[in-house]
Each structure stands twice: as C-alpha cells, then as structure tokens.
C-alpha cells in the first residue's frame, strides 16, 4: 500500500476509526482509557519496526533496545540526575539519543544480511539490556526505577496541557500516533520511501542501478530507532517507571508478533497488530494463568497454517468463495 488514502471508502474507514479513538475517553472508565493509551503507544512502536521489517525487508530482532532506551533517557534526565523534567527537552532528547545509538549500531549490523542480521540485532540489543541492568550510573538494576512524575509541559509560565491527567495523556499519544501515521504515509511516497521498498524487493538491483543502498538502510534504521525511542518514552511516562525488561528480547519478539498479527508492510498493520495482541493478552490471561502456553501454541499454529498472518485468512476465504462462484 503506497499511500494513506487510496480510495474514498478507505478514507471513510480511517476517519471513523480515528473519530472513535478520539471519542473513546468520553465514555470509557479510566482503566480502559489507560489500556487504549498503551495500545496506541505499542502501535507507535510497531509502526517504527514496520519501517524496517515491512518496508525495507530488514528483520530486526532487537528493536526493544530503542524502546527501552527512550524510556531510560527520560528516567535518567528527570529522576536519576534531576536535570530536567521538561517534555520539550526530554522527548527530543530521547529521540535524539536513540537515533544516535541506532545510527552507530546500524553501522555494524547493516553490514550483515538475512539470518545474520536477525542474530546480530538481537545481540546488540542484549548489550543495551546489560547497560541498564548492570551499570549503576545508568540506573542499572533489575528492578528499574520509579519516575518522580510526568513530564513537565510548561513553556515559560504557560501550561498548555497537563500530562498527569489520563485523558490528556491519551490525546497526546493519539495525536503523536496520528502524526506518525501521516509522516509514514508521506515518507513512503518520498524518494527515500520508494528506494527503501525497492531495497526490500531486490537489494542487488538497487545497488546495481546506483543507489547508495547502505546509506538508505542506515537512514531507515536510524529513523526507526528514533520512533522506537519515542514509543519507549511514552511507555515510561504512562507506567511511571522503567525497567530493563523494556529492552528484553521478549519485548522485541512481542513487537514482531504484533506486526505479523496486523500485517507487515501495511500502514495500519502496526496499530491493528498492537490492538489484537493486547486484546489477546488480556483475554488469555483473564481465562488462564498459563497464558504464555496458549500464546505459544497459537503462534506455532499460526506459523504452520497461516504463514501470511491473520490477514491472509480474509484473502483465503475470499479466494475460496471466488473459486466456488467460478
């Protein structure tokens, strides 16, 4: 899918969806407002990974590194070193730091391909996991850190909004998610976006016709890192805490799962996947203490019988119907 809006009906669906999200806190209880805030944050996380996996064909298994790092930048600046709590400083800082780290890591990992890339990204994410698990100056501890508060939104003496209010935080995240979706739609139409999708289809051909493939991939890796950092920042703000598990490889696997569930290389794949994943998690864990077991079995069955993800189910049904009609 090349653009956000390819038809009038699609535009209508998107408008209804965003409208429903915008109206949601007006009816819901605080618990559900928080739940949907979490889903939207995970959507941002999944969209950022989709730029790599879905659009550039780079299966990163270490995306949680940027997620955790983004959260820790806020925790370190605000709580641990008490330099600033300002939203206007800490949020750009989180994105800049994760972008810089992703750039550096990208220099290493993008020299590898395929299977190697999967394992090397996992290994590099593990380095950062150890940073925040072991190094005291970085708040290292297996328990993580409780934040001293939400980001401060003051500009001079003026307070445009208060993130301590769950509804305000909800809308703040919603606006960011919508902005990211729009930015992605524009990016994918831009020369960079087209080049990335070309790389996904055939890297060698792109190289042969003169594209600086490595630089393009590095750009994608850096951008994805920055938005992964944004998601982690918001996640930390929502939870009021950070811990090394944000960087664990389970987190990296979970976000990959979301993409698979929602559909890779599709603008709305991230949000749909995040929503499905959280819903599944809530449902399974409310029915059974063994929800990991059921999740594991579900994954195995999906891979074996539905290799194209949940969305291929619709296609299959469609094809089956058409086959009968013909």
């Amino acid at each position, binding site marked *: 899918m090349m653009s956000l809006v390819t038809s009038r009906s699609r535009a209508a669906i998107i408008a209804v969806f965003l409208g429903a999200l915008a109206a949601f806190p007006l009816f819901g209880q605080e618990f559900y407002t928080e739940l949907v805030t979490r889903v939207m944050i995970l959507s941002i996380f999944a969209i950022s990974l989709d730029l790599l*996996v879905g659009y550039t064909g780079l*299966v990163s*298994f270490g995306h949680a590194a940027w997620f955790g790092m983004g959260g820790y930048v806020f925790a370190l600046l605000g709580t641990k070193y008490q330099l600033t709590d300002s939203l206007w400083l800490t949020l750009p800082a989180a994105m800049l730091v994760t972008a810089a780290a992703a750039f550096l890591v990208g220099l*290493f990992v993008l*020299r*590898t391909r*395929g*299977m*190697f890339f*999967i*394992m*090397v990204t*996992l*290994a*590099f994410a*593990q*380095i950062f996991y*150890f*940073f925040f*698990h*072991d*190094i*005291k100056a970085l708040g290292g501890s297996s328990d993580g850190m409780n934040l001293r508060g939400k980001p401060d939104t003051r500009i001079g003496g003026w307070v445009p909004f208060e993130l301590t209010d769950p509804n305000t935080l909800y809308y703040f995240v919603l606006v960011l998610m919508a902005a990211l979706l729009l930015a992605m739609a524009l990016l994918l139409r831009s020369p960079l976006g087209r080049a990335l999708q070309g790389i996904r289809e055939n890297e060698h051909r792109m190289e042969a016709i003169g594209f600086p493939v490595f630089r393009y991939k590095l750009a994608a890796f850096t951008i994805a890192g920055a938005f992964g950092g944004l998601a982690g920042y918001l996640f930390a703000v929502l939870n009021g805490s950070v811990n090394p598990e944000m960087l664990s*490889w389970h987190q990296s*696997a979970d976000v*990959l*799962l979301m993409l*698979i569930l929602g559909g890779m290389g599709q603008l709305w794949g991230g949000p749909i996947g995040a929503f499905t994943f959280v819903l599944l998690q809530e449902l399974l864990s409310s029915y059974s203490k*063994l929800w*990991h*077991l059921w*999740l*594991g*079995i*579900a*994954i*195995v069955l*999906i*891979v*074996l019988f539905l*290799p194209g993800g949940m969305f291929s189910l619709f296609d299959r049904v469609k094809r089956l119907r058409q086959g009968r009609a013909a």
Partner: protein
Amino acid sequence: MDLALILIQTLNAVQYGLLLFLVASGLTLIFGVMGVINLAHGSFYMMGAYLAFTLTALTGNLLLAIVIGVVLSAVLGALLEWALFSHLYRRNHLQQVLLTYGLILIFEELRSVLVGNEVYSVKVPDWLNFSVPLGSVMTYPAYRLFMSGVCLVLALGLYLLIERTLVGARIRAGSSNRGMVQLLGINIDWLYRLVFALGVALAAFAGMLNAPASSVSPGMGTQVLIVSFVVVIVGGIGSVWGALLASLLVAFADTFGKVFVPDYAGIAIYVVMAAILLWRPEGLFKS
C-alpha cells in the same frame, strides 16, 4: 594477580568454552545444514538441566540419568523435526523465528507447571566429589576437569563424525546442495532428522553435564541461547570449526571480563563480537 589464579581462570574458561561449543555446534549445524534458525535451542539446554535434576532424583545416579536424558532428548528432537521443523525449511527466517519463539513460550510454561520456578541443584557424584591440587596452595574441583574432558572427547567425536564418516560426508553435502544429495538417492529427510536429533541431544547433554557444576534455574535457557548466538555470529554460520574457536574466545572474554572489569562483565563478549564483526562481517569462518 598471581599465576595460580590465572591458571584457575584459564581452566574455567576452557571448561565453559567447551560446554558452550556443545550447545553452539548444534545451533550452527542445524542452521548450516537445514537453514533453520532455532530460537528454542536454549530451551533444549534448559530441558537437559531439568532432566538431570529429575532423573537423578529418580534413579539416584547422575550418569544413568544422563544416558536416559540423552536418549529422551534425541527422540524428542526427532519428533519435533518431524512435526514442526520439517515444515520450516522452505519458509523465510521470520517465520522460523516466530515458530521457535512460540516453542520457547511453550517450553517455559511447561517447565514452570511440571517442575516449578525454584532453583535446584544436582549433587556431584561421590566418586568425582574431590579437589585436585594445583601447585602448593590452590585446588580445582575434579568434576570441572571431568566436564572438560568429556566435552573434549565429544568435540573430537563430532569432528570425526562430520569429517571422516559417510554420514558426515552426506551432512556436508546436504548443507551445500540439498537437491543433488536427493538425486543421489540419499534419504535427505532422515538425514535432517538425524542432524536435528543430534543438535538437540548435544544441547540437552550440555545442560545435564553442567547441572552439578552450577544451579538449575528458569532463566538458564535464554542466557545460553544468546551467548550461543554470539558464538555462531563470531564463528561464522554453519562452521563447526568456527564454533569451537569462537566458543573458546567468548568463554575467555567472559571469564576474564569478570575478573578484570566485573561491572562490565556482561558486555565483554559483545565487545568481542562487535570487534570481530567490524573485521569480518560474516564471522571468522564463513562457510
């Protein structure tokens, strides 16, 4: 730092490196021959440790427990290959990663249901429960020397199997050209099943052998898996020789990292990995 301590740490590093090799060689073989990335490999290691604990408690004999455990693991490996992995050979890496991640979740939850989440220990057999004097003041546990010896014998056996036997020749041929091997009338399905069972048995064996030397704990599978990944990355995917060299390299970095820079010990092996990748992006021995 005195010489005796260096000697002891060197022995520790060699022992850890050889143990790591048993796990990583299975991982690299399964990838090299079948092209499958197996995230659940660490779970087989963990399963081995828990089998050692359970079977030793039942039989009262560690060696007997290991023999039974190895057979059970190999059978389980062959069954898993038949039921799940054989469907993955032509799939993309992402699907392999996902399915084997699903397996990890299943293994972890089953372990927590069947044996619980406590940390267990397994007793060293009486006849190995003594220390060997090293020089005049230091001693070294005999069981650790025994482990090194067993791992060394297995490493040698693996080398002979792959380089000197007909089965090994077929495995090597299968890794470079599946179609050709099939055309020659060799039953590639059973060859793969054999390699897979061997990989699982090696990982489980490593877990069983190590159980008396350290504790048996829930997180052990993940830990060893990620270190094995580093070994495979450093050694070069599919290369058994690379795996041996890289296992020792990683083990030395880890062991001496803990001595010299204890705060950063967790990172030492990744620094080695990054340095090697800068130099050779496809590992030491690209296959």
